[in-house]
């Protein structure tokens, strides 16, 4: 499973790192460190990542491919 994080939409709500700390991390300003990139969701963390995707108030996270 791969997810992309939209650089323009991410405004640092930080919900992603709360729900999927093994997938998403925050930079010093509290923004998703993968903003503008696509991340490989590690095996076994798909549920967490999906929760994070749904919780993002900006809908900045989406499934890639």
């Amino acid at each position, binding site marked *: 499973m791969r997810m992309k994080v939209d650089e323009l939409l991410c405004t*640092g709500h*930080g919900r992603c790192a*709360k729900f999927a700390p093994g997938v998403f991390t925050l930079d010093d300003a509290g923004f998703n460190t993968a903003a503008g990139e696509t991340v490989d969701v590690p095996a076994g963390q798909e549920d967490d990542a999906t929760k994070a995707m749904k919780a993002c108030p900006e*809908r900045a996270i989406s499934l890639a491919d």
Partner: protein
Amino acid sequence: MAKVNVDELVEQNDPETTPERLVERFGRDFFRDFDIDDPNLNEHFHEVIDLMVQKCPVAHSKVGTGYYVFSSEEAVRRIGQDWQTFSSAKGYIPNRPDDQPLMIPVEQDPPNHTSWRRALNPHMSPQVMEGIKDDVAREVNLLIDKFIDRGECEFISEMAGLLPGRAFFIYVLGVPVDDLPELVHDVDKSLFGPLDQRTTYHKKVYDYLEAFLKKRKDMPPQGDIVDTILKGVTYKDGNEAPWDHQVSVVLDLTYGGISTTIYALGSTARHLADHPDQRQQLLDNPEWIENSVEEFVRAYSPVVAMGRTCMKDVEVEGVSLKEGDYVMMGFSGAGRDPRTIDNPKELNFEEPTVHHATFGVGPHRCIGSHLARMELAVFIREWLKRIPHFRVKPGTKPVYETGFLRAMSSLMLEWD
């Protein structure tokens, strides 16, 4: 103002939404002539908001020059994110007097807004707030110490009204502790005091914070948010942000966080007092507390609505808006939108994914959201440890006020 026939937006022939029925039920037709300051809204708040988001997600107001209130979560998100089309630079409340100075950064657009947020965000991140969690827990317990043996408290004046000010002024801004009682009192009076005194108290708070900033200018840097504000930012035109913008940032941080967090604490305490079963869930599963915070702020959004000015003609949810029209994002409705949330009137602590717009969306996303979340979670945890069971004192009624913010001014609680 673009011509909108609200009747076309409201389902035809629905007996629940005729002007007559709305006036009979709520004292006003809030669909066709919304007024955020009408006392009838305060009186029937959730009934009006819930009916609006379901049946009239684009309400029309004829107050002043008129405005629209969009309350579906999708429309709120679209307006908040598209700052080029929906500008903050003409104020976040409708019919704003021209002579009022704009607040920074909340009434500013990118790129100048971005300069401030980039500078300020690192001081308000989840990681930083994690670091002051224990201090806030101590504050909660000190406040509880003062009334726990009495078996009752007036929650707003003895807890909710004090905690956000203390947390922000001591641990974020670093105001001398000796100055706090007066400062917190003055902030309270500027928000909830007699109407004719609010401006005086606001001026007092402004003067205090400006003097505090000036004093810090002459002191060695401490690497905190005050140094960042004093360092300032360079605007797009190459000029440094002026002094009054620097002071405005401190005021925005202060006023953005006080009333909003007081209401979030008050509505949380009231919900837990009225729902013993849900209180028990949190006592049994303290790991659900952080999720419960999201549910409390979703269902009881402290900010009812904030506005934007259209910079060009644009269509939203089938409504043709004209350049210059004023639109409001109805955050209270968006958190209770049945299109995004199953059973929006129920609070569900177990299911962790909660999607809401209570802290705003887009570049103005609440900078204090991580502080507020942390305060609420710490409050719930510490309170339930010491006062696991409590109720609204029989014979009393919680008192609310409503404008662009939902506020609570009295909540009597008691326990055995």
